[in-house]
């Protein structure tokens, strides 16, 4: 009787965050964990949350660049 373990990712975004993009990146992080044989839920969750933080940092970097451009 197969037990199919999956990871759910549900995000609500404001702050300029595209929730679907963030969800995609977090799922990708989980898939990468499984591909590397990492199945510990704590480790998978940590990888997902890191992907989320990386995405938000990218957004902050873009905003900072745009602010520089606007001040010229």
């Amino acid at each position: 009787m197969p037990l199919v373990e999956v990871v759910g990712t549900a995000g609500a975004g404001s702050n300029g965050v595209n929730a679907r993009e963030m969800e995609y990146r977090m799922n990708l992080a989980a898939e990468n964990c499984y591909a590397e044989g990492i199945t510990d839920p704590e480790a998978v969750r940590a990888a997902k949350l890191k992907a989320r933080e990386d995405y938000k940092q990218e957004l902050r970097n873009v905003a900072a660049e745009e602010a520089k451009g606007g001040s010229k």
Partner: protein
Amino acid sequence: MTISNTTEDAILDLIFSATAWANYADNAAASPQTNIHVGLHTADPADTGTMTTNESAYTNYARVNVARSTGWSAASGGSVSPAANIDFPSSGAAGTTVTHFSTGKTGGGATAILWSGSISPTIAIGASGITPRLTTATTITLD
């Protein structure tokens, strides 16, 4: 425009763990929800959907109750997770592939969705005896 992490956590804890948001909001005094219903879907229920939108209907499928008192982690960094694996009933026959999950009010029917999102990997209900499990690596976030 930002929502602070503190505010994100307070909102998530209020909704998923019935924890009062000090000085702003208490858990419902009359008929508070004691559980969060968790459902499975065969396509994205999307922003306008309810828990019945594209809801899975594999044989034996049923939504699962997760207690608001103990069923979810304390919010941190704008994220909550189930405190334990969420196991759905084992399939009684082949059915449709499951791709999304949702959370919402108990009681059944077309109740409003709180948060919904995708699952990875998707689950092909290709036979009887398949038990879908949402692990504790599942995340519900607010940003």
